[in-house]
């Protein structure tokens, strides 16, 4: 059975796209925080926990919200929604902040709320908490975007019947460099409505690489 991408979101400096269409753009920002905060506010999600997340989690969280907004999550078994995300910088952005807080013995004040984000899969946890998702999940680290790795891993989960659907993609951030591509993958298009069928793309290494390249 061939899987399809039924919704996707792309975020890069200055621009947010959903299913290929520009959702938000702002070229006048300097920092990631300056870019993401107004966009988050414009979504009116009413989720103050967002402000406590580290930048990597904020990026993944917003990309996931944009994807899930295109779907009716209630139509899926939340114990069977998988999440597989990869990046190259792991949680280094937050690791550096934590390291700085413990490098000086006389100013030794590590922040618990920083420390909890010194693992990249915490971002997946934030997405799961938000939507009560309890399916299989994995965070993969690779030197650069690897469409083959993602499609192989996710397809294996489908083949082993461990998941019904999957949120997958790439969420990478280090200081002011950031990029996110998240896709929702489903096993076929016969149950989709006409609009979803129109958007649906094959979940193949080629398509995934293309979506990343045209970000």
């Amino acid at each position: 059975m061939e899987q399809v991408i039924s919704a996707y979101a792309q975020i890069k400096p200055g621009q947010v796209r959903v299913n290929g269409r520009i959702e938000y753009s702002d070229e006048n920002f300097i920092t990631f925080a300056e870019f993401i905060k107004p966009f988050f506010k414009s979504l009116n999600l009413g989720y103050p926990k967002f402000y406590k997340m580290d930048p990597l989690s904020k990026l993944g969280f917003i990309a996931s919200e944009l994807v899930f907004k295109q779907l009716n999550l209630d139509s899926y078994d939340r114990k069977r929604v998988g999440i597989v995300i990869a990046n190259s910088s792991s949680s280094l952005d937050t690791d550096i902040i934590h390291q700085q807080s413990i490098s000086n013995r006389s100013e030794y004040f590590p922040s618990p709320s920083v420390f909890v984000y010194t693992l990249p899969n915490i971002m997946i946890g934030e997405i799961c908490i938000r939507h009560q998702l309890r399916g299989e999940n994995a965070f993969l680290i690779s030197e650069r975007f690897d469409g083959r790795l993602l499609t192989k891993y996710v397809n294996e989960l489908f083949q082993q019947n461990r998941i019904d659907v999957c949120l997958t993609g790439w969420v990478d951030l280090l200081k002011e460099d950031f990029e996110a591509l998240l896709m929702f993958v489903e096993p076929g298009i016969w149950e989709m409505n006409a609009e979803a069928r129109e958007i649906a793309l094959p979940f193949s290494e080629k398509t995934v690489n293309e979506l990343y390249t045209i970000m």
Partner: protein
Amino acid sequence: MEELIEKLKKEVIEQLNLEDISPEDIEADSPLFGEGLGLDSIDALELIVLLEKNYGLKIEDPKDGKKIFHSIRTMAEYITEHQTA
């Protein structure tokens, strides 16, 4: 005491990243946890760090935390009592 309460409100907002909350939104006697500001266990740890970093106060017995961090006023009382002790 009132001056310290106002200062603490600002520090708590900053330390806990309470983005949509202003000092005026926090009642000095309202509970910080549970129904109050809805803080969680990580926030509790951040408040312990705040006391140590900004006021040089270490909470020796974790059981005291519940009482000290009940509200902004109880935090202020603890600081006043222990800094002048």
